[in-house]
């Protein structure tokens, strides 16, 4: 626990300078993990600062902070480009012992100009901490000017971040690639995405976009359409990438170490890409005959066309990653064999099994009961080849409220079932599926029954004839903050139907580790890993993605892929494994959970929405339901970005 001596955040001032040390009780939890045995002395952020050490190098740390702002300034607007340079120079001369009395007044004046006249949020937020420090402890700065000798220096760890960057599990530099789109520089934009995300086309279509939910533009009108902008740049350069593939040389092998990756899903592909870029030999083993994992067999083609996945994988293969399809570890090769042949193994096997609802009669597996993931998998694998035989019947009931449930229901409508219903035990507000998904499902004629829970499967002659449900009502909030549904006594009713598709959750098939090489698992049926390194209980075997976290979003799995690649790299080089400094800073910022002052500008430029194909037309096929942005629209949309860059800086002992 780091304890605040003096600090200021927004309008709250903490001043413990004259408080005896033993009385300073409250500290910030989670602030000690930046570096082991390296004590935190101070923090400077976008709305204030905290000092944890009476001897902190105040003047020099603000010099370092403004210097960092200057280094991060994009150079586009005058106040941030030149103003922060003047500020950094001035604070530098004070820190060097050449300060003059009038300098402090000048700094204050310039800081106000920069705050009020900068183009983006970087300039707006960069001066806030300094202004607050000069107000709360002017004597420190005055002393430095008066004494005219060099002030003590400190060790600094800083990062340029933004709410969207912090929310993204892959920590993609979103304002930067949106800015590149704004200036029409699509190549650069895709290159910025590619530093963290080799699957831009996939992410640009099906990402659950945690970034958009924290977008500060929402305070003015609507969030930026980050997902569709990513899709736009990817699609713009699609043909270019195809022609370039032939000329791309694989990254030269700089290491004789070899890595096996089990599973060609989002986590495996991301890790493979970054490890190959680092010069390791990488082989990916995939049970299915095609790449993509859950993104290929769990998401219908109308949301994510298969050719997009194939292009991305070809791009990764062009880097020199080898793919082996149709190989199941545990059946064709054992995990032990794999571990002995490779220097490191990454298990990214996803969660392709389905969970039971827990209703009577489902264990007998009557005909007409199809698990959601199985339904989507058969559909995705067989339908394009014309070999898919849909389960017989007319009325489909999908159980669940997530995106998988929506995918099942909307696919069922496309397959021609005249009546498709979803039953969900809470209300629309608690539904985990995307709002757009729910909206589109309703438009496509899917009935959604809220506050309804199935309790018994009605079967006759080994075939589903209906489902008995019970009405629910919302009770007290549970651990997740959602109100827990409670059964309404005596409200059972029969729902006649022919097909029941449970889509309430997925499980990992852990059969590959139960054989000759046992690995610890959790009580939730996932692989147990050290969350700092993603290494499992067995040395050299790493794991990431859904098989560790349970079913989560694509971007979470990709974040794990980046993390695993980093850990494997350190492991193979014999270094201590652990998250990189930037990741540690992100964790600390998350632990601090500091609020940000509201955006105060002129807004009202609403978001550009994509025009979906008419319902009647799209119901007949599995093609994408909406085209992407046109260049002009994309540039307009990108112009809406406020570039909420903010600098966070930690001052430590050494």
């Amino acid at each position, binding site marked *: 626990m780091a304890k605040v001596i003096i600090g200021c955040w927004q309008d709250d001032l903490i001043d413990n300078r004259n408080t005896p040390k033993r009385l300073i009780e409250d500290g910030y939890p989670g602030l000690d993990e930046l570096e082991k045995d390296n004590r935190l002395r101070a923090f400077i952020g976008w709305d204030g600062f905290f000092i944890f050490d009476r001897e902190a190098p105040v003047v020099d740390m603000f010099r370092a902070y403004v210097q960092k702002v200057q280094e991060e300034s994009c150079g586009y607007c*005058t106040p941030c*480009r*030149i103003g922060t340079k003047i500020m950094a120079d001035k604070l530098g001369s004070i820190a060097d012992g050449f300060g003059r009395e009038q300098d402090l007044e000048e700094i204050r004046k310039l800081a106000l100009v920069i705050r*009020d006249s900068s*183009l983006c949020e970087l300039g707006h937020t960069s001066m806030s901490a300094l202004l607050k420090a000069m107000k709360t402890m002017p004597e420190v700065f005055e002393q430095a000017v008066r004494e005219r000798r060099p002030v003590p220096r400190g060790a600094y760890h800083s990062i340029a971040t933004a709410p969207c960057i912090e929310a993204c599990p892959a920590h993609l530099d979103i304002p930067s690639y949106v800015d590149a789109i704004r200036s029409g520089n699509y190549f650069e934009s895709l290159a910025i995405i590619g530093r963290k995300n080799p699957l831009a086309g996939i992410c640009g279509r099906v990402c659950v976009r945690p970034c958009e939910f924290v977008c500060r533009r929402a305070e003015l009108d609507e969030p930026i359409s980050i997902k569709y902008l990513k899709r736009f740049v990817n699609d713009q350069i699609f043909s270019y990438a195809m022609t370039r593939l032939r000329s791309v040389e694989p990254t030269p092998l700089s290491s004789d170490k070899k890595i096996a990756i089990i599973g060609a899903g989002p986590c495996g592909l991301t890790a493979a890409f970054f490890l190959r870029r680092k010069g390791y030999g990488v082989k990916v083993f995939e049970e299915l005959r095609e790449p993509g994992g859950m993104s290929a067999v769990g998401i219908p083609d109308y949301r994510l066309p298969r050719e997009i996945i194939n292009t991305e994988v070809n791009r990764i293969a062009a880097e020199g990653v080898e793919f082996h399809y149709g190989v199941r570890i545990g059946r064709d090769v054992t995990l032990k064999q794999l571990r002995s042949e490779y220097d490191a193994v990454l298990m990214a096997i996803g969660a392709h099994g389905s969970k039971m609802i827990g209703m009577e009669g489902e264990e007998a597996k009557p005909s007409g009961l199809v698990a959601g993931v199985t339904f989507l998998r058969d559909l995705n694998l067989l339908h394009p080849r014309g070999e898919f035989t849909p389960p017989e019947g007319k009325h489909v009931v999908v159980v669940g409220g997530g995106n998988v449930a929506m995918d099942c229901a909307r696919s069922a409508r496309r397959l021609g079932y005249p009546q498709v219903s979803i039953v969900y035990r809470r209300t629309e507000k608690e539904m985990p599926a995307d709002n757009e998904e729910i909206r589109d499902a309703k438009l496509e004629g899917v009935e959604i029954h809220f506050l309804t829970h199935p309790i018994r499967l009605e079967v006759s002659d080994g075939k589903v004839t209906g489902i008995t449900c019970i009405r629910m009502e919302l009770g007290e909030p549970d651990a997740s903050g959602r109100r827990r549904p409670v059964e309404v006594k005596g409200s059972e009713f029969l729902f006649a139907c022919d097909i029941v598709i449970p889509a309430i959750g997925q499980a990992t098939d852990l059969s590959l580790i139960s054989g000759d090489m046992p690995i610890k698992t959790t009580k939730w049926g996932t692989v147990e890993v050290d969350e700092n390194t993603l290494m499992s209980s067995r040395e050299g075997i790493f794991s990431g993605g859904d098989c560790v976290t349970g079913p989560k979003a694509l971007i979470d799995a990709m974040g794990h892929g980046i993390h695993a690649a980093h850990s494997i790299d350190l492991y193979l080089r014999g270094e201590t494994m652990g998250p990189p400094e930037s990741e540690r800073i992100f964790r600390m910022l998350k632990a601090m959970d500091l609020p940000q002052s509201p955006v105060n500008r002129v807004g009202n430029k609403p978001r550009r929405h994509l025009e979906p194909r008419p319902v009647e037309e799209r119901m007949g096929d599995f093609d994408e339901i909406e085209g992407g942005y046109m260049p002009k629209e994309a540039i307009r949309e990108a112009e809406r970005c406020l570039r909420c860059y903010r600098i966070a800086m930690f001052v430590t002992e050494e």
Partner: protein
Amino acid sequence: MTTTTAAEKKIIAVTIDGTPVGVPEGSTILDAAQKAGARIPTLCHHPSLAPIGSCRVCLVSVAGVDRPATACNTQALAGMAITTRSEGLFNLRREVIKMILAHHPLNCTPCPLNGDCRLQDMAYEYDLTTFDFSEYLLKTVEFPWKAFSTPILDYHPRRCILCGRCVKVCAEIRGLGAITMNGAGAHTVVEPVMADRESQSRCISCGECMRICPVNAIEERMGSAKGKPWETTKTQTTCTYCGVGCQLDLNVVGGRVVGVTTRDDVGVNRGRLCSKGRFGYTFIHSPDRLSRPLVRNAAGELEETTWTTALTLVAREFRRIRDNHGPQALAALSSARCTNEENYLFQRLARQVFGTNNVDHCARL
């Protein structure tokens, strides 16, 4: 997808410094201010480009919003109350202009824009001189030793105020996107975009960036002493390089053409030119250019003569060839440097006087 339809272009009411004014929906605050007759200084704004908003000198106050907004790229909304003049805004603009000038050479005397420069006018209006920067104690910014240049254009990072007009004009009007801003903070410079390290710059030296640069940071390499604005006579003429008919102004100093400029509101080209029209004027004063007729003497050497002698000789010889060998022994080849009318007359001469259809034209230069 939002499309602009007639219905959306309704008139909205805003107040500029207390004066109510009606503007079409979608107008910027700058448009509204112009309509109300309030002058707002601008530097990066250019009517033919989408608003940039980088220079920050057009800041205005909007009632109810703490942060000043840039007039050039902020949409005016119904009921908005805008202040364009106040002591606070004057001081804010003055500080911003001071920052721009802090990194721009102030030796205006040798600059060809001296006397016709927006930045200079602004410094005058906002009462800024070299002495105002002494308090900044500026450390010099080192720029890359080799700045961006092409065989025709030079970029001077020290003069550049990074307004971003050149980058925009290249992307929006030329459609190339050949240049971009690179670097960070005070070290930002304009550089060519490279798709990868091996590829060539996409720049075609059209000079649109030079035309739109407000501070002469991009300059042509045909010599720098081009005369001052007050001693330059501008003569409007039509470009002779192709059939488009672009309008340009020949800048004449002391009877010599020293450059080509354009005006944004004139001609089919609206200020735009290609590299030939803009830079291909040095032939005018070339010593190799024929200015008098030459005729070979008995020894086979070219000798100066009068137009009468020369034309008589040409007419006699052409007639001789036509009479002795027939009209098909003659052909007429004319030049793209001539006007349509001259070319028309020339083919009439060939067909009706020479009696041949052997007519051709170089069509491009």
